[in-house]
């Protein structure tokens, strides 16, 4: 070290520090995304994450919409207030055309007869009454009577045109001004509580880098300002915040000034709200104990999320809400001045507006908010980074250690219980946030909610939606209680798999508790339908476990820097498969659809766990991660879906060529084409991954590798007689099952309701030309080959690797069955079972194909 270099070190200034830290944050984000890309490339050979980019784009568009909608909400709040004001003065607020028409009637008595005028007036009032009944409640007749009376008594005197919303903002003490100001403050508060989104990054929040940063001779205010600016890039809601200001100004001053305001006002206000929000967080970090921080920040994020998703429904219901709360709210209008909105948009006392004043006051507010946030953080940090709290919270209280006997058998559950009792963030993370999202989904599916009071099935549907979304959100947080202490779990002879499976059990237990509560209420409300509700409950038990297992596969581990890995959208979507089918089945009271949802959900759970199990050992070693050996359950399910969906599409295309009257032939041709195409694609796909086509046709048990290379019809050579015998078993079993199926159908004909359906389908068969023949072609020449290849060769094999034993047999047979009409579920399920057993025990697919052919032949003859 020479003195020269020592002399050249200078304390970095405020702006230089800010630039340095923001640059570092940007490089960190860039490095993260580069690493993700490298890993993606290493694993799958893909070099870009199109889906992720699309997701970000969609998210940004949604946030832009939300912020614009918030501006509309301000307007509608003011309008609702103006309407109430008019009502208080005994006037009716009506649309412009209504008043025009009324005045027309008043003026032009000579133009048309009195009767005609009365007719027009009645029509006019009827239309308006309908609107008022919807908006304000009450009966249509009543509203019409009131309107007619007023119009007949005083003409147009009692009617005024709808207020102009925000541009009609008059005095600060008025009721509408208060409503507008409250909405504005609500929006500001929502922005302040957004932070870096709902994915709580508790790890980094627990251990910020402040101590290290403050060991530098840099101005603390710059350090905190850099910290405060970081959410802006992380959360698109801040980037789209200017839309709010743009629309608000635009509705007063016009489009061009609105756009100018978006930049001039929107940008500083967005930055300011982000800063204040971060200052909240910093305050929490400085003043609260470690175990409370998670909860406080969680609550803040929860509020941000809840207020964000409630903007749309509340804006829609604004007139009703304002009317209901009118009495309560009016006290405040008189008590306090509400100039906030006026200041925000530049309203002058005389009712006119000034763009310059608005911009200036917003700038002042932004500067005040940013400076306040920075000052508060610096002041807090001066009083000690660690805070002065720790002593009171050193040991767990006797109270929270008390429930020792609960879950004593399972130390993992006991730990989870202690987490709930002690870490105040646990409730927020595992109950509050999942429930909020589930509730939001219910609002999205308004149809279910609105029907819930009238019928048991809507209530049961609501229970399923809540339970499913609850699990869907909770699953990815399965390792939240472990956090960085996960290393300890890796020293236990339990394996992560066992730990996550027991978490799935625990989550499904909690979700089942909630579903049970709603279902119990459903039984209480509709006692006559109790057995149906109970049946739904049993369905949920089957569905919920599968759902919990699926959602746990979405788990992400916090990296050493504390950032959670984002969940791939495709996987997230796959986890929700079957939910709508099950829910729709319950809501529409069609049990077969509900059963299909359950089966589908279970097989998806197996598929996701198979992939997850392959990934699980590499949670800390993504470089070693290998895809599970093909064919996987997921491959099989995709191939099956391709055949079914593809068949429908190609049938349509074929029908165009051969004409609608030959639809039966189109179906047969389409099935054949699709089956061949799917088989070819799957074979190619598997060959690319090192699985020879012959391997799918043999049950690999590792005894004789030479066997696998032979073609399926060639037999074993040395064991020719055995091959012939297994084929014979296939024929006989198929014929026997076919006869059984015929007997089953004959039995069903004794039930009048079922007989009707069967006869109808038989008539259909007879009516459409060539249907029977084409069915025969599909059932005997195509389906046995295609379906055995997909359901036994791919699906059952993969499921057997995942579950083994009877569960794999049952699940593959069940999935096979649900692709057939409900009436055929039982015999087809038996056929699937027999096929799977035959495949596994003879080691070849051929006997299963023969079985299928024999069965279909017997059934169709």
């Amino acid at each position, binding site marked *: 070290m020479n003195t020269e270099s020592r002399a050249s070190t200078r304390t970095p200034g405020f702006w230089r520090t800010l630039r340095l830290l923001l640059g570092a944050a940007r490089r960190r984000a860039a490095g993260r995304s580069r690493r993700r890309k490298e890993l993606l490339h290493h694993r799958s050979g893909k070099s870009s994450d199109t889906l992720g980019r699309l997701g970000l784009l969609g998210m940004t568009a949604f946030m832009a919409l939300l912020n614009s909608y918030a501006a509309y909400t301000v307007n509608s709040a003011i309008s609702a207030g103006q309407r109430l004001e008019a009502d208080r003065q005994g006037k009716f607020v009506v649309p412009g055309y209504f008043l025009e028409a009324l005045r027309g009637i008043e003026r032009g008595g000579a133009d048309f007869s009195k009767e005609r005028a009365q007719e027009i007036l009645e029509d006019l009032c009827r239309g308006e009454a309908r609107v008022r009944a919807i908006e304000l409640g009450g009966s249509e007749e009543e509203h019409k009577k009131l309107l007619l009376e007023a119009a007949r008594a005083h003409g147009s005197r009692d009617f005024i045109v709808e207020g102009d919303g925000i541009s009609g903002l008059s005095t600060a003490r008025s009721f509408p001004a208060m409503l507008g100001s409250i909405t504005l403050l609500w929006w500001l508060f929502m922005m302040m509580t957004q932070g870096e989104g709902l994915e709580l990054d508790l790890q980094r929040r627990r251990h910020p880098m402040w101590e290290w940063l403050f060991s530098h001779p840099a101005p603390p205010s710059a350090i905190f300002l850099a910290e405060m600016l970081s959410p802006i890039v992380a959360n698109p809601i801040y980037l789209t915040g200017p839309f709010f200001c743009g629309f608000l100004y635009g509705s007063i001053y016009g489009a061009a000034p609105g756009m100018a305001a978006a930049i001039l006002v929107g940008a500083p206000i967005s930055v300011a709200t982000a800063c204040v929000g971060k200052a909240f967080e910093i305050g929490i970090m400085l003043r609260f104990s*470690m175990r409370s921080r998670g909860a406080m920040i969680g609550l803040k994020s929860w509020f941000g999320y809840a207020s964000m998703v409630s903007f749309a429904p509340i804006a829609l219901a604004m007139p009703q809400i304002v009317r209901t709360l009118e009495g309560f709210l009016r006290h405040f209008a008189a008590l306090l001045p509400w100039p906030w909105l006026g200041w925000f948009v530049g309203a002058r006392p005389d009712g006119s507006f000034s763009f310059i004043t608005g911009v200036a006051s917003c700038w002042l507010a932004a500067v005040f908010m940013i400076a306040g946030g920075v000052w508060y953080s610096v002041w807090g940090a001066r009083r000690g980074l660690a805070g002065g709290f720790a002593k009171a919270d050193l040991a767990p209280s006797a109270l929270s250690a008390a429930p020792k006997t609960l879950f004593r058998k399972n130390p993992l559950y006991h730990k989870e219980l202690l987490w709930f009792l002690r870490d105040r963030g646990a409730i927020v993370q595992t109950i509050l946030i999942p429930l909020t999202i589930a509730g939001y989904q219910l609002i999205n599916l308004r149809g279910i909610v609105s029907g819930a009071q009238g019928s048991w099935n809507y209530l049961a549907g609501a229970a399923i939606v809540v339970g499913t979304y609850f699990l869907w959100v909770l699953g990815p947080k399965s390792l939240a209680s472990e956090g960085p202490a996960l290393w300890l779990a890796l020293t*236990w002879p339990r394996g992560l798999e066992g730990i996550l499976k027991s978490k799935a059990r625990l989550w499904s237990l909690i979700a089942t508790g909630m579903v049970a509560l709603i279902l119990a209420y459903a039984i209480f409300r509709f006692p006559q339908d109790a057995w149906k509700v109970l049946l739904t409950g049993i369905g949920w038990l089957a569905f919920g476990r599968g759902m919990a297992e699926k959602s746990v596969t979405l788990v992400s581990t916090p990296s050493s820097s504390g950032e959670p890995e984002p969940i791939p959208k495709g996987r997230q979507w796959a986890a929700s498969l079957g939910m709508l089918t099950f829910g729709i089945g319950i809501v529409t009271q069609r049990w077969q659809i509900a059963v299909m949802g359950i089966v589908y959900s279970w097989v998806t759970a197996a598929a996701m766990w198979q992939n997850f199990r392959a990934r699980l050992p590499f949670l800390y070693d993504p470089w070693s991660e290998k895809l599970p050996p093909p064919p996987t359950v997921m491959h099989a399910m995709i191939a099956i879906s391709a055949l079914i969906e593809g068949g429908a599409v190609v049938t349509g295309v074929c029908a165009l060529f051969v004409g609608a009257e030959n639809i039966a032939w189109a179906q047969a041709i389409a099935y054949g084409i699709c089956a061949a195409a799917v088989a070819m694609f799957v074979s190619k796909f598997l060959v690319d991954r090192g699985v020879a086509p012959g391997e799918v046709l043999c049950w690999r048990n590792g005894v004789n590798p030479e066997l696998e290379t032979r073609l399926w019809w060639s037999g074993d050579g040395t064991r020719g007689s055995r091959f012939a015998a297994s084929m014979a078993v296939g024929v006989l079993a198929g014929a026997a099952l076919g006869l059984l199926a015929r007997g089953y159908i004959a039995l069903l004909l004794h039930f009048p309701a079922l007989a009707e359906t069967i006869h109808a389908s038989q008539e259909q068969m007879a009516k459409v030309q060539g249907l029977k023949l084409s069915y025969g072609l599909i059932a005997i020449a195509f389906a046995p080959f295609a379906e055995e290849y997909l359901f036994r060769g791919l699906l059952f094999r993969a499921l057997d690797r995942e579950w083994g034993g009877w569960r794999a047999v049952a699940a593959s047979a069940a999935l096979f069955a649900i692709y057939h009409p409900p009436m055929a579920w039982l015999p087809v399920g038996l056929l699937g079972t027999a096929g799977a057993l035959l495949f596994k025990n003879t080691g070849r697919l051929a006997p299963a194909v023969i079985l299928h052919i024999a069965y279909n032949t017997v059934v169709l003859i």
Partner: protein
Amino acid sequence: MMESLSSQSALVELSHVTKSFGAKVALDDISVSIPPGQICGLLGPNGAGKTTLFRLLMGILKTTEGALFIDGRDAFDERVEVKRLVGFLPDEPVFYSFLSGREILELSAGMHGLDVKATMDRVAPLIARLRLADDINFYAEDYSRGMKKKLGLLLAMLHEPRLLILDEPTNGLDVESTHLFYDLMVEESGRGVTVLFSTHLMDHVARICSHAVIINEGRVMAKGALNELRSAFGESSSLEDIFLKLTARPSQK
């Protein structure tokens, strides 16, 4: 050299272990075997690959090539079973923020399938010896670095494993605790437990280890019983001399 020992009797066996992260090679063709009941010091400068080696042994990472065996079991493929044999102390143990030291021990005992009460009775003297008795009911997250290491050692020894893997066990400990740690390691090896630990303190290795492995930039530079190492590099040379000679790098001017 160690290879002269029959590999059948080795408790820890690494055969041609290579581990790379993407393009970066962290360990390159490492073959080492450690016989039971020995204390083996793993030496190497920063970034030599010591922690990677430990994580491989714990089945947290998978080898790119080669395999690691603990008592004849593959450290990755049979990682769940292997955990019954191994106790592990990471470099910087982090604990559940909402559990006290005692509760963490109880949880770990339960997860190992041990009788919780009997285990806690068994380790009570050890807790006292480590001077943790006063703090054992406090939240472990608030422990000092040394106390966390002690709790980590307790956890590693809780299920009486046959192999202790300790990543820089004395890092952050005071002098007295350091001596206590080494006393414990010697005692354990006296009961037949194999100890594999990494450190930067040569004199301690010289004092308590029977074997040493020196790695540098992912390669084994020397391995074997201490006296064999000394005779190979000249009787007069200290372990520190050998280490510096083997890990010398051209200065980065």
